[in-house]
């Protein structure tokens, strides 16, 4: 029994041990070996990924009386989170060093937040779910606030904290109402009970609160206002992290709660999700056009991507959930790449976060420009990049679910969205670099150069051969 527990919990335990060790250890070696904490963090993330890979299986195992589950979905989500976090740390380090915010605590907080996400992915009980969410969010708030000499960073940390806390409160209230109605915290029990009982007003009310909380965490319109501000205000090296792995965690939260717990109430939440998705697509794509700041633009683009993910959910069938999962992982990869390009262009005392800062990048640094080209085209959903397949599978499921009108609406919105992505390409390739901000655009270090090339190659190769990943996602969803 003990062996099995260890085996199931190994990934979380590893990250937890790493976080605690580094927290203590860094105070000893932090002054002398500046890079050690960073290196150990990456090693422990890689190690955890290897452990998951080695024991990967699509069968599900439950622990602690069904409060914790390890199944194919959890493993795939955790692997994606680890991957994103690994590269987020790798890309961000120089940026953070230049701004004097690279400290051991940064990595410790990052690992803790990662732990929260992994717990979320594995939770099978509303308490575990809530705990995972809190571990993740609190660490994130603190990470943003680490740049304490920047008013923007403090402001966005405050905003994120206050709004996040409110969303958490709403979610919690919704959970209590569901508990009051069903009498159990376990998702499996809730699922079975709801499948056999009549719908009730208390449950509907709880559902609404839960959905509002989820929409907040996702950044879906009309609960999206924090997204641009937080993305913009946070140091780019942290936005990079913020916009990738936590979105996968948000997916996990929604999947566990809505699908594994409350799927029987599909009829009730489907129409709400349709409205959220439509609003997100409109707000994300239309308002992004007006942005001149690249980080804000990417933030609005995130909102529109969240609309697509919600589309996958609301189909109410397994294929749709797999499509949404594929979308969120691909989105995280693209977002990671997009913000990493900004990090690569930023220099000490210069944030390359305006679209105009990309002017003439095609000449100044062809490799970086090509990477950005691949990433924005993928975000726009142009084949053969993987972003297209993410949209394709979601739309296929939406049409299969008989919601063809919604698919038409979504693609029209993508065309509107294509405009602002094209504008980025236009600035990079068709505009001349302005003299005064012709900062050196060469790669600052090898990890950014090769890491970004890797991300772009993945976006292209997964686009040409998406079969393996799609089949895997479908398989783990079916189990």
């Amino acid at each position, binding site marked *: 029994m003990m062996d099995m527990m260890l085996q199931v919990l190994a990934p979380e335990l590893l990250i937890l041990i790493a976080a605690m060790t580094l927290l203590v250890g860094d105070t000893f070696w932090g002054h002398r070996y500046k890079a050690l904490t960073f290196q150990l963090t990456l090693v422990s993330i890689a190690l955890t990924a290897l452990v998951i890979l080695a024991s990967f299986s699509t069968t599900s195992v439950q622990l602690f009386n069904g409060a914790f589950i390890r199944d194919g979905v959890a493993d795939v989500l955790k692997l994606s989170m680890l991957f994103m976090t690994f590269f987020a740390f790798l890309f961000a380090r120089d940026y953070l060093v230049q701004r004097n915010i690279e400290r051991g605590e940064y990595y410790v907080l990052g690992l803790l937040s990662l732990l929260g996400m992994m717990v979320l992915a594995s939770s099978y009980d509303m308490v575990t779910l809530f705990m995972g969410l809190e571990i993740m969010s609190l660490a994130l708030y603190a990470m943003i606030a680490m740049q304490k000499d920047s008013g923007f960073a403090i402001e966005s940390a405050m905003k994120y904290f206050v709004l996040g806390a409110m969303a958490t409160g709403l979610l919690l209230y919704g959970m209590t109402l569901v508990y009051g109605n069903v009498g159990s915290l376990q998702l499996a029990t809730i699922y079975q009970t709801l499948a056999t009982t009549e719908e009730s007003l208390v449950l509907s009310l709880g559902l609404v609160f839960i959905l509002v909380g989820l929409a907040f965490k996702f950044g879906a319109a009309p609960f999206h206002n924090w997204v641009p501000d937080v993305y913009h205000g946070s140091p780019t090296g942290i936005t990079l992290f913020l916009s990738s792995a936590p979105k996968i965690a948000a997916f996990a939260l929604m999947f566990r709660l809505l699908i594994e717990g409350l799927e029987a109430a599909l009829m009730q939440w489907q129409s709400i999700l349709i409205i959220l998705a439509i609003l997100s697509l409109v707000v994300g794509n239309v308002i992004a056009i007006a942005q001149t700041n690249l980080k804000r633009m990417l933030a609005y683009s995130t909102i529109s991507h969240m609309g697509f993910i919600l589309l996958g959910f609301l189909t109410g069938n397994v294929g749709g959930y797999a499509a949404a999962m594929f979308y969120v992982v691909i989105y995280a990869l693209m977002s990671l790449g997009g913000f990493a390009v900004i990090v690569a262009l930023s220099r000490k005392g210069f944030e390359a976060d305006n679209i105009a800062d990309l002017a003439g990048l095609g000449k100044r640094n062809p490799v970086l420009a090509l990477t950005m080209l691949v990433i924005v085209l993928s975000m726009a959903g142009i*084949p053969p990049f993987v972003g297209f397949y993410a949209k394709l599978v979601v739309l*296929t499921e939406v049409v299969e679910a008989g919601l063809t009108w919604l698919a038409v609406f979504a693609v029209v919105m993508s065309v509107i969205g294509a405009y602002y992505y094209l504008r980025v390409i236009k600035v990079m390739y068709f505009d001349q670099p302005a003299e005064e901000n012709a900062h050196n655009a060469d790669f600052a270090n090898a990890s950014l150069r090769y890491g970004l090339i890797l991300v772009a190659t993945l976006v292209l190769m997964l686009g040409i051969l998406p*079969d393996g990943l799609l089949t895997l996602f479908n398989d783990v969803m079916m189990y």
Partner: protein
Amino acid sequence: MTQFPLLSALIWLPILSGLLVLMMRHQPNLAKQFALWSSVLVFILSLGLYTGFDNTTAQMQFVEQASWISAFNIQYFLGVDGLSMPLVILTTFTTVLAVWSAFDCIKERVEQYMAAFLIMNGIMVGVFSALDAVLFYVFWEVLLVPMFLVIGQWGGQRRVYATIKFFLYTFLGSVFMLIAFLYMYSQIGSFSLLDFQAMPLGFTAQILIFLAFLIAFAVKIPMFPVHTWLPDAHVEAPTAGSVVLAAIMLKMGGYGFVRLSLPMAPDAANELDWLVISLSIIAIVYISVIAMVQKDMKKLVAYSSIAHMGFVTLGMFLLYGILRNTGEVQGAIMGLEGAMIQMISHGLISAAMFLAIGVMYDRMHTREISAYGGVVNTMPVFAVFVLLFAMANAGLPGTSGFVGEFMVILAAFKSNFWIALAAATTLILGAAYTLWMVKRVIFGDVVNHHVAELSDLNRREFAIMSILAVAVVALGFYPAPVMDIMHASVAHLVEQAMTSKLP
């Protein structure tokens, strides 16, 4: 024994050599030579399609089929029939000329320019040979990217406006096509175009699918009233870009009608043929009149392209009217064959016209008609070619321009006298705008010292012009080889288009 994957070679060889060329950043001359010879190689390879083609069947040939995305039953499924094979060869042929024509006029980032055309070559072959809907859509859509970059980087003054307009128009059109594909997939669980053609579909679904396709192809061809991106894109594009745009990319719209619209939604096509025919007539008459008043040569040829493509769509949708009136299948086949010939012929003629304008632009750096006059005095050889191509554009018998237009007008008479009459006005209007331009540009007295200093064609330009001239005249006098290739497939298409798919 497995067949040599000729179509895959035609798609991937140019794409890979394009990527190779992209790496020749510091050797522009090597990049040019490499690009030219690899495009020639691809062209020679593509002739294998012609020699190995079986004229007697409407079946898909050179078929390659493999699973690509198994979760959604998406296949890597290629094949050509009589409708697509000539277009594939036209593509590889035009690419050679486009690459070669750019040898002197492109000075900056030569390797990227050359690479873009090689990559586009592969993608366009992919569009014409894909038999899986997703594969088709991927090629269809990805083609926008290199063209977007070509117009945006090497274009004229308003290139950014033109290229974004081009991209968004075509993107908006094609997403509806994607939804139509997804709908049909949700019905039968396959993305094969052949399965789509065979599946039964209800009337409302057919109408919606037909309209979705119509939006996609009408933008691409382009048809009135969604044609406005074309003059902008043409005027701003560099010469080779205009050539590829006019000669091949417009044909993708026409190809879409015969590959998708007619066979997949025949009942809807029967119901809505009046819509396409009226839009075609507007394109032929109204756009021709607009062409007449253009001051910019490229714009004039761009509008003339729209008018000529009006003939293509007209020829494709005459069949229902003919069948209603006379029940005669031969007339329907003639209309469609005329439309197909018109596509090939327009590919050659528009390429030639744009190349000719490019020749003058390289020397004078203006496309304004008023800046020219009396070019024949300084460029006599060039003037002969221009006159030939202009005559072909106006539809002079003995050139390829005549064959298609003549067949379509004949077919139109079987359908409705007034349609035929309206279509026939093109013989007057087309001659008017083309020859008037030639008169103002080529003939008359030398108007200024710039024209007086012009030098005649160099050897490379002469070779390009001669190749096109031979092709135009040959197709005009002896179109039989092309018709033979198409015949079985067109007959099969007419049969498909006449068979109701209502369940």
